[in-house]
């Protein structure tokens, strides 16, 4: 029996009106690892994220962070407990500079202005935003905004970072850079749970992959196992696809 996972989610469910968006999802994220949550559009990945971080209250289920039940906590309480998310659609503080954006994150653990500013500059520089630190966040490119999302979250010194499609909309070069950046964050001791569509990145990064389709988990395993899982292939490519590929 290995150590208890850093994040343990069980029975997580959410219904919007008559639509069961997430059905009894359970997943574990071991400390220090990188776990990916994949699935077709509308599978309920982002809703699951929102429930894990307190943005949406789940109808049922439990979210435990390092053995502590954080189900139903407010997002800021969850962040203070060490679990911070990024947004698929980047949400910069457009009127602030890049450094000021990151400093909002740094202020979670550091009350002193000079120290928080220094921490924000360090994180920004480390994550490749050095030349942009004093520019307005609105001036960033899409790739820059994705980096800013990660930098702000990293500046809060999280134990667990939840990345929601940080590679969507990026070109292959930028994806490679972000993959390196995520490796770097992990090397600094941060555990990572990511939602991703870019399978190349998932294969390169994840120790373990959970596959969600129509709100339910249909598979879990290493990237290699998942790629050969018939249920997963069908979810992505349609009914009968696995048989056709195999034949």
């Amino acid at each position, binding site marked *: 029996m290995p150590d208890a996972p850093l994040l343990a989610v069980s029975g997580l469910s959410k219904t919007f009106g008559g639509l069961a968006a997430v059905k009894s999802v359970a997943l574990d994220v071991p400390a220090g690892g990188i776990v990916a949550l994949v699935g077709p559009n509308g599978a309920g990945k982002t809703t699951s994220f929102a429930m894990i971080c307190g943005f949406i209250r789940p109808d049922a289920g439990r979210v435990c962070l390092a053995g502590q039940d954080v189900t139903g906590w407010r997002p800021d309480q969850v962040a203070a407990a060490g679990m911070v998310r990024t947004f698929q659609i980047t949400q910069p503080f457009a009127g602030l500079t890049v450094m000021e954006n990151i400093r909002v994150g740094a202020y979670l653990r550091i009350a002193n*202005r000079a120290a928080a500013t220094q921490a924000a500059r360090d994180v920004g520089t480390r994550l490749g935003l050095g030349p942009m630190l004093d520019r307005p966040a609105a001036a960033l490119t899409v790739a820059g905004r994705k980096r800013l999302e990660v930098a702000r979250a990293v500046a809060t010194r999280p134990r667990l970072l939840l990345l929601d499609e940080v590679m969507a909309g990026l070109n292959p070069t930028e994806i490679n850079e972000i993959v390196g950046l995520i490796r770097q964050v992990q090397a600094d001791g941060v555990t990572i749970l990511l939602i991703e569509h870019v399978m190349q990145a998932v294969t390169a990064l994840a120790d373990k992959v959970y596959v969600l389709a129509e709100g339910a988990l249909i598979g879990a395993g290493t990237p290699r196992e998942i790629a050969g899982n018939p249920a997963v292939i069908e979810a992505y490519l349609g009914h009968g696809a696995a048989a056709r590929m195999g034949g």
Partner: protein
Amino acid sequence: MRHWLPVLIAVLAACVPLVAHSHFLVNLATLTVFSAFLGQCWNISGGFGGLTSFGHAAFFGVGAYADAVIQTRWGISPWASLPLAVVLGAVLGAAIGFAASRAGLRGSYFALVTLAVAEVLRVIASASPITQGGLGILIKLNVTPGNFQFSDDRVFYGLAFLMLALSMAVAQWLTMSRFGTQLAAVRENEDAARALGVAIVRTKSAALALSGGLTALGGVLYVQMFLYVDPNIAFGADRTVEMLLVAMIGGAGTVWGPVLGAILLHVVADTSRIAIDAPGFAPMLYGVILLLIVGFLPKGVAGLKGWFVRA
């Protein structure tokens, strides 16, 4: 230039009572400084926090009535009722902030709720015997410093000046502190702020408490200056409109915006009053100015600085 200009303005403003002996000039200066102070109060929550209140008169009126009622009913010195008035304003601010952000009201919904609070208070003040209804409360003339009444107008100018300095210190603190940064984050993007650990309800309530307490202080000074208050003076919508206009003309969310705004507004309003002295003209003019500012200068006059720097 950035460093000596504010100092120069402050020194000049502090010298006004030394050179100006006419009542007119001292009054004009006092009202302008007072207006800048109230604009800064609005700016603390409205500019820095994006909480566009249309009901700041509620805080002003609560402060004014707290001061007037306590000294006329119980004969307690206004100096003693002053802290109570400030606390009441802060509590009202915190309560509005708490209720509105718990209910998730933002933007125009927040504006409507605050407007409603001020209007409800106005109606209550018009009907309640404690506030002597529409008659208003007249403070007995008894000019001694212990009564917060002064024979020399310039004392009030000095007090208004100190209050403005206090409010500007608070604004300056907002640009430099953790709380100010978190408030700006809430203004720019609530979801992102929450994700980064900012407690939205607490931050908004605190900003409104700060702003409400200071605004109530303004209400106290007003009553002591004019020795009279009635429901329209205390809770009327013009009060709020002037406050937000001053902040928005000058530049909402900037430390010096309300000062610029108050100077411009008083110059424009007072000179236009000489030319056209028709009732209702000033509010109409305010409306036109507000439209122009929102349409063409969303960052106020302070935003023009960027134009020159870029050019």
